[in-house]
């Protein structure tokens, strides 16, 4: 027993399956959003309210397009992981898996849609 490492003793028990991967992933995306959110809020905020021509022209510029693209990716990834925790806390059994899979489809779909839209305006 004395030769077992702490990690080996913990493996297979409770939430020890993937260790701190989920926690660390949320931490990385939260730090990224700390920079992206202010950039996105002020670029998007100044674009919203414009005419069709103004809006589409705004996203042909690199800065608003890249900030919006990055924000869509990181924000939906962060939501995906955060919402997974919410489901794991309150819903159990088959419905838990259904909701996590459904929410993953929704967030990945939103990322693809957002990137497509930005790319189409930018190019």
């Amino acid at each position: 027993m004395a030769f077992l490492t702490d990690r080996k003793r913990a493996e297979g028990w409770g939430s020890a399956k993937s260790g701190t991967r989920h926690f660390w992933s949320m931490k990385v995306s939260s730090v990224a959003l700390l920079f992206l959110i202010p950039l996105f809020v002020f670029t998007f905020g100044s674009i919203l309210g414009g005419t069709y021509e103004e809006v589409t022209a705004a996203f042909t510029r690199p800065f608003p397009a890249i900030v919006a693209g990055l924000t869509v990716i990181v924000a939906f990834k962060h939501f995906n992981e955060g919402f997974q925790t919410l489901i794991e806390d309150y819903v159990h059994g088959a419905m838990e898996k259904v909701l996590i899979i459904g929410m993953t489809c929704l967030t990945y779909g939103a990322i693809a849609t957002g990137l497509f839209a930005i790319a189409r305006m930018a190019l």
Partner: protein
Amino acid sequence: MADVNRGNRPLSPHLTIYRPQLTSITSILTRITGNALIVSMLLVVWWLLAAATSPEHFAVANGVLTSWFGDLLLFLSLWALWYHTLAGIRHLIWDNAIGLDLPTAEKLGYVVIGGSVVLTLLTVAVI
């Protein structure tokens, strides 16, 4: 395994037993704001797709986002966004085992609530 008394045992006190406190309310609000933001996130993606599709589609999505209801929703989402951001910073601080004592945690709670309101009004003023 050794627990033969399953289903008929005293449970540890849960949420409903406690008086609402600043620390618990700010914690719950972090979760609520973060998850509620999906509504405006999806609306923004819809707005982007509409702008990339055609002037007619854009008119519909832009009409919704700039209506009084859209304004209200985006205003509340802006507050939720700043609240969640500040609460997230509080968590990043806590992750280093700093500020976990009650007086500091409560002080940070007031900073998160007050700061989110100030940032929201500042953003509206600037934009």
